[in-house]
């Protein structure tokens, strides 16, 4: 069980969440549930080509259909709006919601039809005639980087969006000194978190107030600002309602292009407009695919298992447009050498455009693929040296007494006890017994393997790595905030400025505020403001809200508590230090009969300024805006930067059996040791960790956005894009450990990406351990049933090679 530090009243306790009751009764309110009088609906005409010139568009037949309100093409739309924001420095890679002149991927939106019902809009969309001239397309980065390749954006002059070479520490020297080198390629195929709710947005323009109201299933920093900018509206003309429940996101719900389109239509037509993606639109044209990345790993090490240096070249297929997705090569700089003492690292990230669907941020923002490549590297080294995979990790893991520990790329890890967490996971699974079980299974003719991964989850999301990828960016703050208010009745309300997609932020704020004020969290209400009335937030990205929103809520609650104490001290004519604060009531120390209750203090604050100390505002509310701890600095001249402040750790131990007749893998045991510091609500943390592991199992074994030679997505439905069910995800055991962070309010770290950052690596290592006796391996995800089958066939064909590792 957990080892939550003592001294907390509500933090770390088993408590029901505030959100669950409305969801189990069907009373959640999602964007698609927002019903407005006179609501109109959008259907989209999408490109059937991976690359083509739009020759002509005929809309009159569709427009003439009864019930159709408008048929809008890219020509009209692009003239009336500005390009969506581009994160990297590539000004000619512009991007609008609707294509104009050229389409760059199959599924790209070309025409929007607005009608009284969605069904009518879809009928009319079928009547729109678009004539295309197909152009050559390119789907793979290796081809796209060749000189003769078709260009996705000819104006950019190349398909390479971004190419950097970072060298941190004496890489060449360490490679020269090392006794052994090993090089291989690990490939993370394109998958995503694919929430069950597709993206949905509703917009309504009020000509009287000149405000555009938006309800959307959104999880995105700077969303209102970017929407307003593209619509050429002032920021205070866009009001995003954050009280919409978001049906899952895990990074991808960033429907800026959807929002700008619907906002434009609502304003132009003077009616509220709704767009809800259907599943194919979501998979093909929703622009929410994740990293699609190959890693060329080169590692230098000695015979005793000491890893001296790493060279990593990561080539990522970002798809047809830029957006913020190329930065997913940047966050891993935060933990580029994993939890290991590796003194020198070279990192060469390359972001390449192709005619695939554009990428979007996916849980971990590029860290899960990097962790997979690092952990495959550790296993390859262990196998090369014929060293135990656990012993190799134990040798290289940063020791507890070495924290805070600064890695070559400049980030300092705050705290950790990696050896203990790994030991706990191994004990929980009874590792010696597991080895016996594996060996017995092998004797029975099964392929059986144990996979280990020891991985980091950087948390407290910040944008400080962006200047490394775009020197024109000099953002140094990524604040979050909370407003806490006590009304005249004495009730407490916490107000946050972003939407939630299942992370339990209402529970988080109530727990933290309750902890500080010593009031029951069950009675604390937490609401989501709209973007015009909210304090600044950078939304729940990068595992940040336990740290950032939790820290801000605690900060605001402390101001309230201090105010109450000041009011009491003023009545008792004593110093604040002489006041005892308990459960919201105050008394004079040593004189217990001198008491002012919560209700009395609130009454004074709201009604009796003549009894208030000087310098304190009447009314009882406090805001707290918190910047990311350790943030605030630009990268150094030698490209070192503190990316995220906190580092959670996870150790996965997985046991897999593969039926040699069918090649079907089955996960038989799964234990995850997890240390994210102080858990504010253990049920929420465990839930996200289980869910992250399930995502990771999907990425490792099942999920892939596949394309055919014509550039068509061939896994656009849940019949082909396989999401693990309760039968594929095994029972999972989580073993908690707590190493508090010295940087945060209560010692908490982030956990929103927990599980996902280590599961793909561990499952991949287990599959390879199972295949090892045959002398074959697989280094590409997903390690699908078919991929394993083909690998087994290869082993049969090349039996002469069994048992031989490549050595030199």
């Amino acid at each position, binding site marked *: 069980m957990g080892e939550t530090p003592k001294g907390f009243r509500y933090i770390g306790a088993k408590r029901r*969440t505030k959100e*669950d009751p409305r969801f189990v009764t069907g009373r959640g309110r999602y964007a698609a549930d927002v019903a407005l009088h006179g609501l109109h609906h959008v259907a989209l005409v999408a490109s059937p080509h991976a690359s083509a010139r739009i020759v002509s568009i005929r809309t009159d037949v569709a427009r003439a259909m009864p019930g159709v309100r408008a048929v809008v093409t890219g020509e009209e739309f692009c003239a009336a709006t500005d390009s969506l924001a581009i994160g990297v420095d590539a000004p000619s890679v512009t991007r609008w919601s609707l294509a104009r002149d050229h389409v760059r991927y199959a599924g790209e939106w070309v025409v929007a039809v607005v009608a009284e019902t969605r069904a009518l809009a879809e009928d009319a969309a079928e009547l729109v005639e678009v004539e295309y001239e197909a152009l050559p397309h390119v789907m793979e980065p290796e081809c796209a980087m060749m000189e003769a390749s078709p260009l996705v954006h000819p104006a950019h002059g190349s398909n390479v969006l971004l190419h950097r070479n970072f060298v941190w520490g004496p890489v060449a020297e360490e490679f020269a000194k090392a006794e052994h080198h090993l090089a291989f390629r690990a490939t993370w195929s394109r998958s995503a978190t694919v929430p069950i709710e597709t993206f949905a947005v509703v917009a309504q323009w009020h000509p009287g107030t000149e405000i555009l109201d938006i309800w959307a299933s959104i999880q995105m920093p700077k969303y209102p600002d970017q929407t307003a900018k593209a619509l050429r509206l002032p920021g205070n003309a866009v009001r995003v309602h954050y009280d919409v429940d978001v049906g899952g996101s895990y990074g991808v719900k960033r429907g800026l292009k959807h929002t700008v389109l619907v906002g434009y239509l609502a304003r132009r037509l003077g009616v509220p407009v709704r767009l809800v993606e259907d599943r194919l639109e979501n998979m093909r044209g929703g622009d929410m695919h994740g990293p699609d990345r190959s890693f060329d790993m080169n590692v230098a090490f000695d015979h005793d298992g000491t890893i001296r240096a790493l060279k990593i070249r990561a080539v990522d297929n970002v798809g047809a447009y830029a957006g913020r997705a190329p930065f997913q090569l940047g966050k891993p700089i935060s933990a580029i050498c994993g939890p290991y003492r590796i003194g020198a690292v070279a990192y060469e990230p390359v972001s390449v455009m192709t005619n695939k669907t554009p990428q979007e941020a996916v849980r971990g923002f590029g860290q899960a693929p990097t962790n997979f490549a690092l952990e495959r590297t550790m296993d390859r080294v262990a196998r090369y040296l014929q060293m135990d995979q656990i012993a190799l990790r134990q040798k290289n893991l940063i020791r507890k007494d070495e924290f805070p520990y600064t890695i070559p790329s400049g980030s300092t890890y705050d705290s950790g006890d990696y050896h203990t967490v790994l030991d706990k996971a191994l004990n929980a699974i009874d590792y010696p017994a597991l080895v016996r079980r594996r060996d017995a299974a092998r004797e029975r003719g099964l392929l059986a393997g144990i996979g280990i991964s020891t991985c980091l989850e950087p948390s407290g999301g910040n944008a400080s790595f962006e200047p490394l990828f775009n020197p024109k960016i000099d953002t140094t703050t990524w604040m979050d905030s909370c407003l806490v208010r006590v009304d005249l009745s004495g009730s407490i309300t916490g107000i946050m400025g972003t939407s939630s997609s299942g992370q339990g932020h209402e529970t988080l704020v109530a727990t933290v505020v309750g902890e500080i004020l010593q009031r029951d969290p069950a009675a604390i209400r937490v609401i989501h403001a709209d973007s015009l009335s909210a304090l600044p937030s950078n939304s729940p990205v990068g595992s940040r809200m336990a740290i950032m929103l939790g820290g801000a809520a605690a900060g605001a609650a402390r101001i309230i508590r201090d105010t109450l104490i000041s009011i009491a001290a003023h009545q008792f004519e004593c110093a604040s230090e002489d006041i005892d604060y308990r459960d919201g009531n105050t008394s004079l120390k040593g004189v217990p009969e001198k008491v002012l209750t919560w209700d009395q203090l609130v009454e004074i604050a709201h009604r009796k300024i003549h009894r208030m100390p000087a310098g304190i505002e009447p009314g009882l509310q406090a805001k707290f805006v918190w910047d990311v701890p350790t943030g605030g600095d630009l990268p150094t001249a030698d490209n070192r930067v503190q990316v995220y402040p906190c580092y959670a750790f996870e150790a996965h131990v997985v046991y897999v059996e593969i039926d040699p007749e069918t090649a079907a893998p089955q996960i038989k045991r799964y234990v995850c040791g997890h240390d994210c510091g102080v858990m504010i609500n253990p049920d929420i943390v465990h839930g996200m960790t*289980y*869910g992250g592991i399930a995502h990771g199992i999907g990425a490792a074994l099942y999920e892939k956005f596949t394309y055919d030679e014509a550039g068509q997505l061939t896994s656009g439905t*849940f019949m082909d894009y396989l999401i693990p069910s309760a039968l594929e995800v095994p029972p*999972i055991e989580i073993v908690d450990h707590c190493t508090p962070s010295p940087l945060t309010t209560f010692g908490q770290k982030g956990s929103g990406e927990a599980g996902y950052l280590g599961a793909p690596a561990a499952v991949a290592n287990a599959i390879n351990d199972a295949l090892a006796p045959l002398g074959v391996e697989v280094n590409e995800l997903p390690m699908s049933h078919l991929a394993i089958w083909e690998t087994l066939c290869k082993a049969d064909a090349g039996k002469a090679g069994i048992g031989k590792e490549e050595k030199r």
Partner: protein
Amino acid sequence: MSDTLYPVSVEVNGETRSGHVPARTSLVDWLREHLNLTGTHIGCEHGVCGACTVMLDGEPIRSCLIYAVQADGHRVVTVEGLAHADGRLSILQDSFCETHALQCGYCTPGMLIAAQAFLDKALLERNPRPTETQIREAISGNLCRCTGYQQIVDAIALAARRLAAGAE
């Protein structure tokens, strides 16, 4: 597309609901758009994810794969019909809250319907203590991206125990 409207009358959560709909209106669209029962969600509209699961005459079905007119004369239970008449949570709903068997809540209504149908059947078949494997099979047609299913399985097992204790 024909504009003809067809009469439809369905017992929804114990109440007779009637209307006129085009033949192509799915049951889930009718529930959500015409009856304002937005607790039932749409995930894939091709019958895989299970988010739109409702009970039709006691059996869990995909309401995206059946037309509203096909439900004419039948009995439908949605998530809005699971709680007691006085608003108290059912044992299953309460168990979901106890184990935190959800996060974003989007798959939850369909998951609850599938689980309730399973528990009803288990009770009928005098299997008050279903195994974890039986529970996993029962919800294997309902996809969840948040929870990894563990706390859902725990919730259904807890509900089964509570129901068995109540029945004893």
